[in-house]
């Protein structure tokens, strides 16, 4: 998370201009009653790209990321995920959701199931995997997020950071091509943030397409290929971390950065 690591792990040096599009948003708008939460949002995210969405609270970044696996419905515009357009068609939604993993601010683990069952449930019943295979894969994933010894505990017995890592393993168990992170560290105690960010960093380096809503500037500087800054439901500024943090063009961006840095 410190500046010295920046040079050796930055993914932003990669050239992704030839990679295929994974998420395409064109003119996406959404209203809650009369309040416009998203206003003409357009962006394209390439395969293997890591995009960090920044912005003040209430700027629509969570709403946008939740539209991408249709936990929220956009009312105008077009969202296409891996070539599948999100419409009201249930089959498309199910297909997109099994390709897109999501990690929530509040973890949302299933409290009545053991950690292992949290991870295997969807592969067994949605992907229709045999149980033994799913359990083998879950054990490997828990190893990957660093908590293989917690498989037989219930989520309530784990710390926040461990729970969030289980949530990441649960999402990965569906073998998604895209991972969405909705403020994954905002509900964590400071000393647990690092363990979750480490897992996310490892995931980004492994080539996963990621879209991360976060307030962790260090993570953004270090891992992101691109920063998208939102305010009032609009995309205000986009750029590589180097340019975005050192040389922002918009006044709103400057104001925001002066408040958080």
């Amino acid at each position: 998370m410190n500046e010295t690591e920046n040079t050796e792990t930055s993914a932003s040096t990669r050239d992704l201009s030839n990679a295929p599009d994974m998420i395409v948003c064109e003119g996406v708008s959404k209203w809650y009653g009369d309040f416009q939460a998203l206003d003409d949002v357009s962006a394209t995210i390439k395969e293997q790209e890591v995009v960090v969405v920044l912005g003040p609270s209430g700027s629509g970044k969570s709403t946008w990321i939740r539209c991408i696996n249709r936990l929220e419905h956009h009312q105008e515009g077009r969202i296409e995920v891996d070539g599948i357009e999100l419409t009201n068609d249930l089959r498309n939604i199910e297909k997109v959701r099994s390709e897109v993993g999501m990690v929530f601010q509040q973890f949302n683990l299933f409290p009545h199931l053991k950690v292992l069952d949290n991870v295997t449930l969807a592969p067994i019943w949605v992907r229709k995997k045999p149980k033994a295979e799913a359990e083998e894969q879950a054990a490997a994933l828990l190893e990957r997020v660093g908590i293989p010894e917690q498989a037989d505990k219930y989520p309530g017995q784990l710390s926040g950071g461990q729970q969030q890592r289980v949530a990441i393993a649960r999402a990965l168990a569906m073998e998604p091509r895209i991972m969405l992170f909705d403020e994954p560290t905002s509900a964590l105690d400071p000393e647990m943030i690092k363990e979750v960010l480490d897992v996310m960093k490892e995931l980004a380096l492994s080539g996963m397409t990621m879209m991360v809503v976060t307030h962790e500037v260090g993570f953004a500087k270090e891992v992101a290929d691109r920063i998208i800054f939102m305010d009032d439901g609009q995309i205000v500024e986009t750029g590589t971390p180097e340019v975005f943090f050192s040389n922002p063009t918009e006044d709103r961006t400057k104001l925001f950065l002066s408040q958080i840095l």
Partner: protein
Amino acid sequence: MSDLNITGVEGTVAIKPPPETPKLPPREWLKENLFSNKFNTLLTLFSTAILLMISRGLLSFIFNPERQWGSTATNLRLMMTQAYPEEQYMRVWVSVAVIFTLVGASMAIWNAGSRVTLRRLGSFLLSSGVVVNILTLLAPFSGQAKLIWLIIGSAVAGAGGTLLRVSDKDKNISSLTLVVATLAAAILSLWIVPFGHHSFVFERTPRSMAETGTVALTTKLPWTIMVVIGILAYFFGKTMTNRFPSKNLRPTIIGIWFLTPPTLLYLVLRDPDFDMGHVLNTDIPIFLIFAIAGGILLSWLTRPTTGEIGRVCAALVLLAGFGMFFTPMRMIIRILMLLLATFALAAPTFSGDSKKQRRYVLAWIGVSGVITWFVTAVNTPSTIEVPGDFFLGGVSLTLLVAIFTLVISFPIGILLALARTSKMPIFRILSTWFIEFVRGIPLITILIFFSIMVPLFLPKGMELSEVSAIVIGYSLFSAAYLAENVRGGLQSVTRGQHEAAEAVGMTTSQKTFFIVLPQALRVSIPPLVGHCIGVFKETSLLAIIGLFDILYIARNVIPNQTEFLGSTRENLLFVSLIYFFFAYQMSKASQRLERRVGLGER
């Protein structure tokens, strides 16, 4: 990662036990808890006076020489099974034995019971001995009886005190051993003290209670056998636990528990006179056709590769099932068709590899077999001949109506709750109307309606016994209330849980079945158990519509026997004890269940 730090911390810090809270000497305990200030002192004195007055009143009622306790002791069999014929009474004991076997085995398999420290047992004995002595002093006993009771009380208190002083702090004993010991003592007392007489053989002297009839009509030998069976079943359960994994054993036992009430009622107690020719020619072939054809259909539908066409097929089966109600058709075929449609519709939710497919098909064969057998048994006339409409009465009728009502109303209630919270307006509106309508009608109205009116509405040739009609009506009533309890639980499942389930790609039914319902039911355990207790106690309304439930027998039958004219109060007290016994057991079971699923901890 951070795990390293944690182990480092654990290595250096020695664990310090919490300081022991000092025990207050009795005088100070009293002062702190009962006489801490003026108001508390006043409250303590006031409530002690009230307690003493109530105990004294109750004791002088119970031990009044005018009380005819012989009326309950003599009529125990009437209260339990009413007019069940004597020559068939063995069937009752077989049923009790089956239940004892299951209870014993389940206790072993679920590892029931806890450890009780000898000190706790000692303080329990000490305090109960003291209570007995206080009550004896209050009771209107003659000198000699008073002395005997005082000696008993002092002996118990003395034993408790000794146990308290002598035993180590950590010495303990299994609570199951205690229960078995108490039961054994109770049974032993049957052999020594002459109560539990079963027939009117007294001539002028109600004290000479003799046991008549066969072994089945007595109580001491059968009850002794029952306890032995229970203990044997416990050890049998223990060996089973060692031999089979509990994840296979427990569902099997739960399944047997669910099959037990209909089996005992229709096969053991009712003794149906099966027409074997009809069974072989019609019932078994129908079942086999459905089992095989349905099994093939379902194994195809649960294949992950079967897509939309599977849903279309399931819908067609449902349509065919409804269509059969408009053509002359055997009831069993209509029922099996609807059941098959339900299974077919749910198939995509449970589809998967061959192991899952096999399990689903086996579930279908099992359920359809049970339903076929059940319908056949219901339609077969009973050979038990009794004077009244129904062959059971008393406690067994009360339990029967309560158990069947609960078992039937649980699935209906859950479905109603799901429908009421569903996004589909037609289900939501229908279920809301049903619930509001049923909740707006008094239970007694529903019972009267179903006992008197429903038989009039039935099509020609279809018969429904009064008790069946009442169980159906009561189930609908109970389901409406259950639905509201479950709905409370459903609403307590957070939005985040729904979103997490949706985000991993679960369908609505998978989300409901795997994520929402388990959590909702866990939260609703306390209100659901409250509802069960309510359903059990409100079976006493059956007395009003003239069924021979235990309340009716206690209030209207026994007090009219020439030997026991006007013995209503004694019987009512006894009946309330019986109700209390069962209700308290349910309440205890609920507490254990809550602890087991860790309610309030997570």
